[in-house]
C-alpha cells in the first residue's frame, strides 16, 4: 500500500500585480527582454545548471524557448510572445516590451483596471485604423519592381541582432542572400493559385561569411569517405533515385515489449542481410543510380551497391527527407520491401560536390524548375552561426509576409514615437466621442491616452542601452537618439538623421526629449518625394500589427487577473 500524504491546500494569490514578489519577478523578466532590444541590445548567455552547451543570443524566440519561466504570469507572457513569434517571426521583443510598459503605465496612471482596459482597447483600434489608412505617416508601400526596400527590410531584421557579429558589408551580403532566396521561392510563371517554394538553411562553421550563398536544389553534407563512382554520367541528365525513410541498418523491427522466440541455429541477422541484398538487387536491376536513406544503411548493402556503381547516401536526417522527396518526385519508402513500386522512384539532376571549408556538400538539383533552394550560411564560430541561422530564417519569413501585405513600417523607433504623437493628438480630438462610448470621465480618458502613448514611447526608448538621450521631433514625430558625447558638450544636438533615416535634421525645427510633455500636434506624413530620403530601417508590417495587438491584449488580460490559484500537489 502506498503511503498517504497529506494533500496540500491550493495557493491563492490575490491581486497578483500588486504582490511585491511577483512584481519583482515581472521586473526581472522585463529587464531581461528589454535589454535585448535593437541593434545595440545586450546579449544573454543561456546554459543549464550542469554545464551543458551555452547559447549566446538576443532573440526573443531562442531566449523564451530556453528560459521557460515557472511563474504562471511570466509563463503567460512568454507563451503569448512565443505564439506571436511562431506565426510572424519578427517583433517578439516589441510585443513583450510594449506589454510590460502598458502594465507599468496603467499602474502609474492610477486608473481603475476596467477603465484602463477599455481605453487601451479603444486606442488600439485607433492605432490599427491609422496604420491601415493610406495616409499613414509611418508606412512605406513596398515596390516589388525593385529589391531596394526588400533588402532594407531584410537588413533591418538581420542587423538588429548583434550576436551575429556582422560588419555592415556582411549584413548587406546576407540580406541580399535572404532576398535572393525569397525570390527563388516565388515561381516564375504559374497562372492561378501559386504555391511558394521553400528554402532550407545549412550552416557551416569556419569559412568567412562572404562564402555564404544560395543554391537552387538541395545541399547535403557528405562524410569524408563518401565515394562518387559514376559522377560523370550524373551531371547533365536526370538520374533515377530511390529514397528510404526506414532504417536499412539490419535492425529487427521495433519491439516495444515482449520477446521473439527463435529456433536455435537460425541466424536472424544473416537473414535480414539477405533480405537487404534482395532489395539491393532489385534496385540495381531497375537502374537506380542514387540510393538515399534517412537512417543507417547496413555496410553489406552499401558495399553491394557501391560495387554496382550506385551512389549511396545514408543518414540524411529526418529534416531533409520531405524536401528531397519533393525535389525529386520520389516517395519515401517507410517499410522494408523487396520490390519497389515504380512510382516510388524519383529523378535527380546535377550531382556536384561543393566545398565549404572542411565540409563537403553534395548539390542535388531538381530535374525541372527548382521549388526548393538551399542557403548555405558560413560564419567563424558556432555561437554566432546559430544566431545567424535563426535571424536569417526570420528575415525570410518577414519577406514572405510582404506578399500578404505589401507595406512596411518605419523602424528605428520612429513608428512608435509617431504613433504616440498621433494618439495624443487624436486623443484630444476624439475625447468627447470616446468618453461617451467608454463611459469614463474625460480626465480618465486623457490619463489613459497619455499612458498608452508613453508605453509606445518606452519601446522606442528601449532601443538605447548606453546612455544616449532619446528625442522626438515636433514635426513628423520621429525618433532621434543623441549619443553620449565624448566632448561632454552642454548643448545636445540631434544627429543628422532620425532613427529610420527618412528625416534629416535640416528639415526639422524643433525637438524635445522623449519623456517630456509637448503640445499636441498632428504628426506630418513624409514629404511626397520619398526617393530623396530612403528609409534605412524598416519593420515588417504584418508582424508589427499583430505584435501590437498581442501586447495590448496580453496586458489587458494580465490587468484583469484577480486571483492566481496554484495547486501545490
Amino acid at each position, binding site marked *: 500500500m502506498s503511503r498517504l500524504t497529506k494533500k496540500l491546500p491550493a495557493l491563492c494569490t490575490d491581486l497578483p500585480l500588486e504582490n511585491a514578489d511577483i512584481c519583482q519577478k515581472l521586473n526581472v523578466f522585463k529587464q531581461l527582454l528589454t535589454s535585448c532590444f535593437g541593434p*545595440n541590445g545586450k546579449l*544573454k*548567455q543561456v546554459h543549464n545548471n550542469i554545464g551543458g552547451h551555452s547559447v549566446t543570443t538576443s532573440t526573443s524566440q531562442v531566449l523564451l524557448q530556453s528560459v521557460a519561466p515557472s*511563474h504562471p504570469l511570466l509563463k503567460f507572457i512568454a507563451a503569448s510572445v512565443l505564439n506571436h513569434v511562431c506565426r510572424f517571426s519578427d517583433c517578439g521583443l516589441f510585443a513583450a516590451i510594449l506589454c510590460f510598459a502598458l502594465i507599468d503605465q496603467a499602474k502609474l496612471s492610477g486608473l481603475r483596471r476596467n477603465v484602463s482596459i477599455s481605453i487601451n482597447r479603444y486606442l488600439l483600434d485607433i492605432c490599427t485604423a491609422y496604420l491601415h489608412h493610406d495616409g499613414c505617416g509611418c508606412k512605406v508601400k513596398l515596390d516589388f519592381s525593385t529589391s531596394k526596400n526588400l533588402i532594407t527590410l531584410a537588413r533591418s531584421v538581420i542587423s538588429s541582432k548583434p550576436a551575429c557579429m556582422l560588419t555592415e558589408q556582411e549584413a548587406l551580403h546576407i540580406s541580399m542572400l535572404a532576398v535572393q532566396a525569397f525570390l527563388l521561392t516565388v515561381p516564375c510563371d504559374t497562372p492561378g493559385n501559386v504555391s511558394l517554394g521553400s528554402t532550407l538553411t545549412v550552416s557551416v562553421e569556419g569559412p568567412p561569411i562572404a562564402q555564404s550563398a544560395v543554391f537552387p536544389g538541395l545541399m547535403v553534407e557528405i562524410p569524408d*569517405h563518401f565515394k562518387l563512382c559514376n559522377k560523370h554520367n550524373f551531371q547533365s541528365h536526370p538520374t533515377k533515385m530511390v529514397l528510404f525513410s526506414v532504417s536499412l*541498418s539490419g535492425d529487427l523491427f521495433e519491439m516495444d515489449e515482449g520477446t521473439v522466440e527463435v529456433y536455435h541455429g537460425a541466424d536472424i541477422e544473416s537473414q535480414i542481410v539477405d533480405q537487404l541484398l534482395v532489395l539491393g538487387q532489385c534496385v540495381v536491376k531497375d537502374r537506380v543510380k542514387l540510393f538515399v536513406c534517412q537512417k*543507417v544503411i547496413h555496410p553489406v548493402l552499401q558495399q553491394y551497391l557501391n560495387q554496382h556503381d550506385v551512389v549511396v547516401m545514408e543518414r540524411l536526417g529526418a529534416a531533409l527527407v520531405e524536401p528531397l522527396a519533393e525535389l525529386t518526385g520520389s516517395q519515401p519508402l517507410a517499410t522494408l520491401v523487396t520490390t519497389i513500386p515504380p512510382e516510388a522512384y524519383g529523378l535527380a539532376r546535377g550531382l556536384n560536390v561543393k566545398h565549404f571549408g572542411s565540409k563537403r556538400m553534395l548539390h542535388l538539383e531538381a530535374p525541372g524548375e527548382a521549388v526548393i533552394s538551399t542557403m548555405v550560411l558560413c560564419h567563424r564560430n558556432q555561437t554566432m552561426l546559430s544566431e545567424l541561422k535563426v535571424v536569417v530564417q526570420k528575415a525570410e519569413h518577414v519577406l514572405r509576409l510582404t506578399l500578404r501585405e505589401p507595406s512596411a513600417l518605419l523602424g528605428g523607433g520612429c513608428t512608435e514615437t509617431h504613433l504616440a504623437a498621433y494618439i495624443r493628438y487624436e486623443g484630444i480630438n476624439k475625447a468627447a466621442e470616446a468618453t461617451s462610448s467608454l463611459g469614463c470621465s474625460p480626465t480618465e480618458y486623457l490619463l489613459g491616452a497619455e499612458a498608452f502613448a508613453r508605453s509606445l514611447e518606452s519601446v522606442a526608448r528601449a532601443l538605447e542601452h548606453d546612455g544616449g538621450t532619446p528625442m522626438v521631433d515636433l514635426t513628423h514625430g520621429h525618433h532621434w537618439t543623441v549619443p553620449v558625447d565624448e566632448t561632454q558638450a552642454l548643448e545636445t544636438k540631434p544627429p543628422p538623421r532620425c532613427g529610420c533615416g527618412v528625416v534629416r535634421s535640416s528639415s526639422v525645427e524643433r525637438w524635445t526629449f522623449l519623456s517630456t510633455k509637448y503640445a499636441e500636434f498632428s504628426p506630418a506624413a513624409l514629404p511626397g518625394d520619398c526617393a530623396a530620403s530612403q528609409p534605412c530601417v524598416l519593420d515588417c508590417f504584418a508582424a508589427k500589427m499583430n505584435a501590437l495587438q498581442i501586447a495590448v491584449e496580453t496586458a489587458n488580460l494580465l490587468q484583469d487577473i484577480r486571483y492566481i490559484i496554484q495547486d501545490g500537489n
Partner: protein
Amino acid sequence: MLSSGVLKHQQHVGLQKVSALAGLAHSSLGPCKSYKFIQEEGSREAALACSCVRLLQSLELSCAVGQLVSETVRTHHGAYGSGSACLLFMSGAWSRAALESLRRGIPAPRLVYAMSEGLDICLQACRKHSVPLDVVNTPPSPSLSTQAQARRPQHKGPGNIKLTHSRYFCEAPASPAQNHRDLGPAARALSHGGVRSMELVLQASLLQSATGAAGAEARCSALDIGRVVTCVVPGLSEDQACVLAGCVVRLPAEGAVVAQRMSGQPLRVALVTGDLCARYRHLGSKSPTGVSHVTDRLDRGGSGGEAQWTASVLTALLRLGVNLVLVSGATSGALSPQCLAHRVLLVDRVRLPALKAIAEATGAVPVTYASQLSERCVGTGVTLTPWRDLGDHQAVSISTLAGAGLATAVLTSCVPAKLRALEDEFWACAHRLHRALQDGALLPGAGVIEMVCVRDLQRHAQQHLTLPGEAGAAPGLYRDTVLMLMADALTDYVATVTANSGQCSKLHSWTAAGQEVKRLGAQGQMGLGGVSGEAAQGQMGLGGVSGEAAQGRVYDNLSVKVEAWRRAMDLVLLVLQTDAEVITGIDPEALRTETDLMLL
C-alpha cells in the same frame, strides 16, 4: 519543479572571467613552455600538460563564459592545430583593454566599433608584412638578397636593369617543386622551440616526397599530414625518436614471432573499420533485444555464437589467403591466438589515416564485418619490417610496395608522462609547417609582427580623422583611446613572450618592446619595406625574444595568427555585449542561498 534563474553581470564580470582564464596561457607562450601538473581530486591521478588546449580540456569549466572560451579554443585547435595559446592570451589581453575602455566611460557600441577597426588595422598589417615562403626558404644570405627578392615584383618595370651576374641578385629557382624540396629554413623558423619535433616533421616530409607515389596532393604540398601518424614508445631515450616509412605498430611477443617470419615477404592484407569481434555492430545499429533462442536438443555442442563466429572469420581469412588484418578498433581476444596459429597476423588500433593510406596503395577495400570480405576487398603488396625489440613488445613497420606516402613519427621518452606532451609538440610543428605550405607566406615572428601592429595602431590613434558628417564612424577621442589600449595589449603579448624566454624581467621586456616600437616607427617613415626584410634576418632589437637568436630567424603562421586574433576578438566582443546569464533547470529548493540569482 525546475525553473530558470537570471544572473545579472555586474561590472562586466564576463570580461574579468575571460581575463582570468587567459592567465592559463601565460606560461604556454613562446619557445620556452613550462609543464603543468593536473591532478584529479578523487583518484589522485596526475597528468603533465604543456599546451593550453590540454589544460582547458582537463578543467571542467561549467560557467557560460568558461564554456565559450574552451569552445573557441577547441574549434581553433581542431582547425589549425596551433596558435591556441596566442588566441587565449589575446582574448585575455583584449578583455582587459575592453574593461579599461568601459571604465573610462566609453559606451559599448562605440567600443565594439573601435575594437573591430583596431583588429582590421592589425590584420592589414599582417597582410602587408607577410613574407613569401620562397623568400624564407632561400638559404640565409646577406639581407640584400632577401630584400631584393621580396621586392622583386616592383623592379619588373620596363627599363630596369637586371643584375643577373651578381649572385645576390640571381633569379629565384624556376620550379616551385624545387623550392619546396628544401623546407629546412622555413621549418626551423617555425619550430618555436620544438627543434627536435620539427626535425622529425622535416624527416617525415622528406620521406613522403621520396615515397609519395599516391596522389598529386601529397606531392605538391610536400607534407601531407593526413598521411602522418605517431607511435609513442616509452622507455627509450628521447634522442632515439625517428621517422620511419609506413605505419609503425607495437606488437606483443606472440605476434612478433609471426611478424618476424613474415618480414620482407609481400603480404595480402584485409582492412576492418570498427572492432573485429562477434558482438560488434556498425554505428547506428541496435543489437536486438527480446530475442530468446529455443532448442529441442539438450546438447548444443558448446558452440556458442562466439566460437562459431571465430571459426567463420578464420575460415574466411584462410580462404582468401590473407596474412595480415589491420583493424581500427579492438579485436576479439579469442580470435587473435587462433589466427596466429595459422600465421595470420591481427593488428588492432591502427589509426584511421593509416588504414586509408594503405587502402589506397594496396587496393584493399575496408569492410565493417569479416563476413563482407571477398577477393576484391583484399589488398596486396604489403610488407612487414621489424624495427626494434622493446622487451615485451616489438615495434614493426607496415609499409606498402607501392608507396603510400605514409610516415610514422616514433616518439620516445624515458619519462612516460612526457610522451603526450611530446606528441602534442610534434603535431603542433607538423600543423605549422603544413599551414605554411598552404598559405605560401609567413609572418615575421618573435614578436615583430605584433610590434608592427602596435606601431600601426598607435599611428592610427594619433592621426585624427576628419570625419564625414554622417553618423556611424567611431569618432575621435574614444577611438584613439581604444586603439592605444589595444596596442598595449599586443605589447603585453610581446613582453610576456620575452619574459617567458627567461632572459629578462617582464618590466624590462615592456621597456624593450616600447623602444623597439619607437625604432620601428622612425624606420617606418623611411619606408615600410625594410621591416619585413630585416625581421626576416632576425636583426630586430628583440632577437632575444625567441631564445633562438643564434639561429636568427623566427616566423609565425599567417593564417593561424590572423584567425587566432579574429577568434579572440569575436570572443571578447561577444562577452562584452553580454549583460546577463540565464541558467535553466534549477531546482528552486536547492538554490535558496544564491543571492545574485533571480528565479523566474
